[in-house]
């Protein structure tokens, strides 16, 4: 199973990502988390996911802040993070690509989305 964690404040978005991934590939096990605090809590108490999909614009703790918190922890540092956002400015895209494994703009193309995620997981596993 490929364990994917999605962090987004909107339930509909979480649902969409979960269904899209699970429909495309039965191997995906998608965990949905609705804010940064819960994400850190989950990481502490459970097995590491193979990849984290992170929304940027979230109340309380933004995607960037959560990213920093995950990367500060030695055990979680290696988990690939992909930013997922509806933001359209160059800065968000460039920063997302630089810090994360990838930056995916919403709305995304389902096929392309699954392909990109699989590629990152495969690269991680071969390394």
């Amino acid at each position, binding site marked *: 199973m490929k364990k994917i964690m999605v962090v987004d404040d909107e339930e509909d978005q979480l649902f969409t990502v979960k269904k899209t991934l699970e429909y495309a590939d039965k191997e995906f096990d998608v965990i949905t988390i609705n804010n940064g605090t819960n994400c850190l809590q989950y990481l502490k108490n459970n097995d590491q996911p193979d990849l984290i999909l992170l929304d940027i614009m979230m109340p309380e703790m933004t995607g960037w802040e959560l990213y920093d918190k995950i990367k500060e922890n030695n055990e979680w540092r290696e988990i690939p993070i992909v930013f997922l956002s509806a933001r359209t400015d160059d800065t968000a895209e460039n920063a997302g690509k630089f810090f994360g494994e990838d930056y995916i703009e919403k709305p*995304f193309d389902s096929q392309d989305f699954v392909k990109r995620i699989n590629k990152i997981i495969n690269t991680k596993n071969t390394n």
Partner: protein
Amino acid sequence: MGCRFEEPDIIKDLREEEKLGKLGVKTLEFKEKHQIDNLDFNKLDIAFKDHLNLVELIEEITVKIHDVVDENEIFRIIENQIRNSEKYSASILLLTDDKTKLRIACNSEETTKIKKIERLIGKKSSNYKISYKKSKIYRNIIDEGKTHFVKLKDVIIEIFPKITAKIILKIMNYEETKDVLTPLYRNNEICGLLAITSSDLGEYCIPSIKNLARHISLSLDKIDKQNKIKEVNKDLIKSKKMLEESSHYFRNLFNSIADPIAIVDSKGKFLEINEGVTKYTNYTRNELIGKNFLTTKIVTKKSKIILLTNLTKRMAGINIKPYIVNIITKDGDKLPFEVNAQKIEYFGKPADIVIFRDITERIKTEKALKISEDKYRTLFETSDEGIFIADLNDDIKFIDCNPKSLKMFGCKKEDIIGKSPIDFSPEYQSEGLLSKKLVFEKINDLLNGLNNISFEWKHKQINNIEFDAEVTLAIIELEGKKYLQGIIRDITERKKAEISLKESEEKYRALFFNNVDLLFMHGLDDDKPTNFIEVNEKFCETLEYTKEELLEMNPWDLTDKHMQIDINGFLVKLKEERDVLFETSMISKTGNKIPLEIHNTIIRVNSRNTVLGIARDITERKTAEEELQKLAAVVKHSGELVNLATLEGKMIFLNEAGEKMLGIHPNQVKKHMIYDVIPKDLQFMVKKQVVPSIINKGFWEGELRYKNIETNDETYVYALTFLIEDPETNKPLYLANVSRDITDQKRDGIKLEKAHTDLKELNEKLEDKVKDRTKQIHDLLQQKDEFINQLGHDLKNPLGPLVNLLPIVEKEEKDPTLKEMLQVINRNIDYMKNLVIKTIQLARLNSSKTEFTYEDSNLLDIINSTVISNKLLFKESRIYIKNNVSKDINISIDKLRFEELLNNLLNNSVKFSKESGRIIIDSKNDGDFVTISIKDNGIGMTDKQIKFMFDEFYKADESRHDFDSSGLGLSISKKIIEKHGGKIWAESDGLGKGSTFYFTLPIKSNEKDDINLNGIIK
């Protein structure tokens, strides 16, 4: 079959096609009866003749091979004989393991044919290896020892692959050829077979052929016999020779060895001695041979016991390690020898061969070594310098260190052993070079032959405290192995002293020689100054003498004789106070009188009283004092206001004209600040303009007004204010101001200026209004873009579930009616998504925040790559595309966006092309710009369409619901091109006549760069 060799491919192929059938052996059925029935005398005559021929041939061969004792020669003879005959061929098959080697002897005609076959099948006949076991016929002959009479064809079919066999049979014409096969023997065992082949063979030939085979077999046996005898003989001769050689060798060795060697029997009797013995002992051969060493005086008594004990042990078969004995020469000298003995057989009896080695020298050396090592050890342990020994492997490691070096490095022995000197050095030496690198360089120098090297080195203690050391390195050899020996001397103190000495000397020299004052030193006698000891450059320069000349003079020689100085009194004062300041004049070489202020101090140089004089040329000061007095008079009576103030603005001088203008009483000048006379409305201007100008530029000039502090009347002036600086230090001292009354000229000008100002104000107001309006419009536009951006962004999020989930629903839906509805919904969502994304893209292009990243690219390359990535699109619509863009145009572009532009234009062209249309891309170089055109032969455009087509959301055909188009592609393209500094437009000859889109781009015209780039690429 049964034959292993590589077949050419063509034959292999042929072979595959044919089904391999099992081939039986057909022994020719010879029906004698039939032959007799159809007896033809003519034929019989021929057969008889043939038989005679064959018999003759075989006899000839038999005779020829009779005395031959070489296998190869036998076969050569057979081959030769056969070659000369016209009718027969012979093959000889020799068995080696299960592989057999074929030798074929043919007549000339057949040889030619065989060559042809060889060419066809690509293999030489002499290279055939035939496995006889796979041929039934061969097996029969060899296993059973019988002679066979068969058709050659059958043999060929059996031993060759089918295709090869076919070729052979066809070319050789073997259809009717017969073959007699008979075994060959060697030592009563079958060693091969002989085959005689001819089309005319009959069974009557068999006895003759068998006879030939028997002869060959006999010859082969004969060869073997002869070979055996030869070998035995050879062995014998060899053994004899070896014996002789070894005996000879032994004798030579015995005699040529310089060390004494003796052979004694088991009782100790000398059987043989070499020259070494006689040489060392001076005994003659006869005096020793035959005598027992126990009865001679050749060794000491103690040694006799040792020798005898060991001899006995050895004879009992015990090996004895080398031991030492003392030998006494005929002259009575006692020599130590190391003895190495071994038990041998000597003429059948056990004996002992004893080798003596003179070890006198060795013992001496050992003794000396021991002494010197002791000495070295003592030196090592007690030395006041650090000594270490290091291993000279790839990394140098300490093996030993004396107590002093441990103290230097501040550590214990266990801290240092096994570590490298580099561990005890800082990373870099003071010259800035890597310690590690330097160490290896030095060791290389040593290994390359330098005896030893000394150098200064920064070491560090184990606690990282650095110290300066002088290190001497040398390579020493201990027990044949090379080691590095280092001697370390701590020179921290010396180094410190050296540095401070050097610094203070440098300081002194710099001070003395570069001083702007005149410096000199001279000695001091009781009653008068002595000659100069040292003078600086400035002193020479001022007094116009060279240094050499001055060193021949004393200060008294230079002093102006008109200055009446009581030299004795002066000297007394100097000696008492040791420090005197006075003014005097000296006369230069050309007679100039130079006023000087001199400060003399007595210092001790080389424990003698010496005067150090520091003189300052005060000519300028004197002149200035005089000039100033003259100037003061001028200033005082000048008609213009002249004023001096401190930097803070406090007045310190005001001339008469100024006093009058400002209403200040001469006694009150110093009580006023300059701001007191500046009218209130000008104060701000003075602070903001005048003061900064003076500070920055050193002066200000311009119009001002002054206020009379008594009457409050104002005077218009043109003022020049400037800083007065200290000529030596350039530090500003005072503010000076000179002002001229311009009140009369000014009054007329004022009215004119007012009118001018009013006009200017009016103008400015108007301009501001225009600016405001423009800004308002700009803001509105920006608001529009921001609104679109925000809207787009807000739309994107909710689009997600629609775009991603509805297609899944559609796919899973089984009801055809619902499925169709979902398809329509999905199509519309797709269109909406497209529209939102394009809208945001356009808003981004419009935004001033969006930056393009330009890089240099080749125009043709990028167009080619875009065309290739759209290949599928052209293929689907069957569009023929031609790219005529010239290859050497370089442009600076944002690659991603430029590709987007090309994609938009190409998509557009394809969309409005008919099927099987054509698109031509071309470029035109105008020098500064390149114009790129994309021409299609599609549906074309009206003038109205051309006019609006680059507008946002414009669609040429409103009625058409086009899901592929957002109506923004061309607007986006236009923005992209504009950001690149180019233009875009379209042309068409009307509906149905095709369209051409043009756009321009600035050319990157750096030819040098181009050449370099090309060079690299090539």
